[in-house]
């Protein structure tokens, strides 16, 4: 037990201080901050492009549209400047193509006295200005028509107010639409977390063990500490490393989204979409549980496989099938996110190598009986237990095995090493 702690600390410290870990964590953090602040970053560039403001020349015959239009465009006066001109349409167009004005707006009256307008500019790529002008004109037109019909503005407001329409379920415990969306995004994130954790940290464990074997330091280690302590010291050490990295990412994500909220940007941030208004504690609990179980399962497998090879180059060969298993689980889960109630998903949620992802998906998105949840977790935990027992036996023999063959027949040889005969 004492050696378990020493090995754990050694693994954790060495990996934490390694250049590879520091650099990859830094890159992930920068990327995370970029994603979270993406809308603000885009805004920065956009403001730059449109902040100069557009001068729009107004061409009209009656001269009665300038005032109401200017009034309507008042909130955007820093970006749209409406200028009254005495030019005719052709002259105005010329002025626009000469660059004197940014755009020209020609307003005519149709037979029933309603406005009809054409917007001219040298490029149609700009959406903002014509849209605002159109809205303004629309509003003017509506006011004009309602006045002619003798409607009050209250009556108009009533016409435009949206109908009340809500979806709800008859079951008390079923998830509301909003909760379901929340759960879906949560499940998405966790699926990726499990997927990448297994690929990155599983391989890290296998490589770590193969490195110790190839540098032959394993010979000394096995004479000092039991293989079980070594194997689980490594698994837990790397696990803590993973949690450290995710903890950091989470802190930075929450921190930077809080900052952007405080600055009063208002708009939706990633974290808000993810968590909704309140943080779903039960979902976070499930997420942590299934992450840990999934990690333990695959890490035990990776440690076992890593002990079978004696050269780092061979690690990928033995780890390959395990990675494939994770990828399959990932794709099943991606399918399941759109059809969580299909029987295929129900069945696979009890298969230990898939259940960390798929049972979480079901728990997160559906209301499932407690026994199903407990059964799945039970199967998962006992599989981890069995794998740990078999794994530590293979590990014990495997670390003494050296040879170029890295085929799976080595499992048999490794177990034979630990037997009496």
């Amino acid at each position, binding site marked *: 037990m*004492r*050696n378990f702690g*020493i*090995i754990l600390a*050694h693994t954790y410290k*060495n990996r934490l201080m390694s250049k590879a870990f520091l650099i990859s964590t830094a890159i992930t953090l920068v990327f995370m901050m970029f994603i979270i602040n993406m809308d603000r970053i885009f805004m920065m560039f956009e403001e730059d492009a449109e902040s100069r403001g557009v001068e729009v020349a107004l061409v009209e015959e009656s001269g009665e549209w300038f005032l109401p239009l200017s009034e309507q465009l008042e909130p955007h006066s820093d970006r749209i400047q409406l200028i009254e001109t005495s030019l005719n349409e052709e002259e105005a167009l010329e002025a626009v193509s000469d660059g004197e004005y940014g755009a020209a707006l020609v307003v005519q009256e149709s037979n029933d006295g309603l406005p009809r307008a054409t917007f001219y500019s040298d490029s149609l790529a700009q959406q903002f200005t014509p849209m605002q002008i159109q809205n303004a004109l629309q509003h003017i037109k509506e006011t004009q028509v309602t006045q002619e019909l003798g409607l009050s503005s209250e009556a108009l407001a009533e016409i435009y107010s949206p109908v009340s329409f809500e979806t709800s379920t008859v079951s008390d415990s079923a998830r509301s639409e909003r909760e379901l969306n929340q759960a879906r995004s949560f499940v998405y994130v966790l699926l990726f977390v499990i997927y990448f954790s297994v690929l990155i940290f599983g391989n890290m464990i296998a490589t770590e063990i193969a490195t*110790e074997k190839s*540098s*032959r*330091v*394993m*010979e*000394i*280690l*096995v*004479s*000092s*500490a*039991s293989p079980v*302590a070594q194997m689980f010291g490594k698994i837990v050490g790397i696990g803590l490393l993973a949690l450290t990295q995710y903890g950091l990412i989470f802190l930075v994500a929450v921190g930077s989204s809080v900052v952007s909220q405080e600055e009063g940007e208002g708009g939706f941030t990633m974290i808000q979409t993810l968590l909704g208004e309140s943080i779903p504690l039960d979902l976070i609990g499930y997420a942590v549980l299934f992450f840990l179980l999934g990690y333990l399962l695959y890490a035990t497998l990776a440690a076992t496989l890593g002990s079978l090879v004696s050269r780092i180059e061979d690690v990928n060969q033995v780890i390959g099938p395990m990675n494939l298993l994770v990828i399959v689980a990932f794709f099943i889960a991606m399918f399941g996110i759109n059809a969580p109630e299909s029987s295929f998903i129900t069945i696979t949620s009890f298969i230990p190598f898939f259940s960390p992802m798929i049972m979480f998906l079901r728990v997160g998105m559906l209301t499932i009986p407690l026994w199903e949840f407990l059964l799945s977790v039970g199967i998962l935990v006992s599989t981890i237990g069995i794998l740990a027992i078999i794994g530590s036996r293979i590990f*014990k023999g495997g670390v*003494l095995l*050296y040879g170029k063959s890295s085929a799976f027949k080595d499992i048999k040889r490794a177990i*034979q*090493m*630990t*037997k*009496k*005969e």
Partner: protein
Amino acid sequence: MTLNITNITKRFGPSLAVDKLSLQVPKGEMFGMLGANGAGKTTTFRMMLGLLEPSEGEITWNGKKIDYSRTNVIGYLPEERGLYPKLKVRDQLIYLGRLKGMAKKDILVEMKKWLDRFKITDYESKRIEELSKGNQQKIQFIASVIHKPELLILDEPFSGLDPINAELLKEAVIDLKRQGTTIVFSSHRMDHVEELCQHLCILHHGSPVVQGNLREIKQSFRNKFIVIEGERSFDFLKNLPGVIKFKQKQEGVRLQVEDEEVAKVIFSHVAKEGYVRKFEVEEPSLQDIFIEKVGTAYA
């Protein structure tokens, strides 16, 4: 405090690695384990360490079986050298020392002492991969003795070292023995075994072919060796009765004869023929015994 190996056999499936080996190593003794490559030395060591389970028989230290609860009392220098290449000497020794149950400050004290003794104090904060092979080996030796083990197992401790460093390590081993450490070691170098061990065992295909006290082994080996040097042919000696082996050398011949009586006969023959520069009857060396028992395939 005796290492007791009682009638152990180790099979890996159909192949037999060690066959009915029994030996005792009393406290403070240095025991030599000899054998050709693949004779079963490393397997025997691994069984002593509890890494492998003997198929039959048992190994005890101080009356009890060796397992992971008692690794603190054992030091092991494996034949295959290896340390963490990226780790500094200091961190390396701290890690390995702590696995043997030492406190960090004790490790640092011992480490200074040993580095000083091996004249490599400058390397304390160097990474292992920056060290020469010989110096890496010294570090690994330190790692196996830093916790002052009662039983020290050294698998080929001097292989790959230059004569000066081999001497340095040999002195360290002798000192440890003087301090009461029980040492078992294997070597291909017969001269080292002759120099260091009172007791030894020669393994051949997993079974002990020679075993016991070095002096007694030599005495019980009745064959003598005769070295004759001179400027003429000694071929006529080849067919004399009692001559077991005849080996032509640069300066003359080396004969293996049944016993001292045969040597006397040969001397009279040689003297009859005339002058020789050298005529010497030698006691058998361990090398001779080894070759005799294990076969000329390995020399």
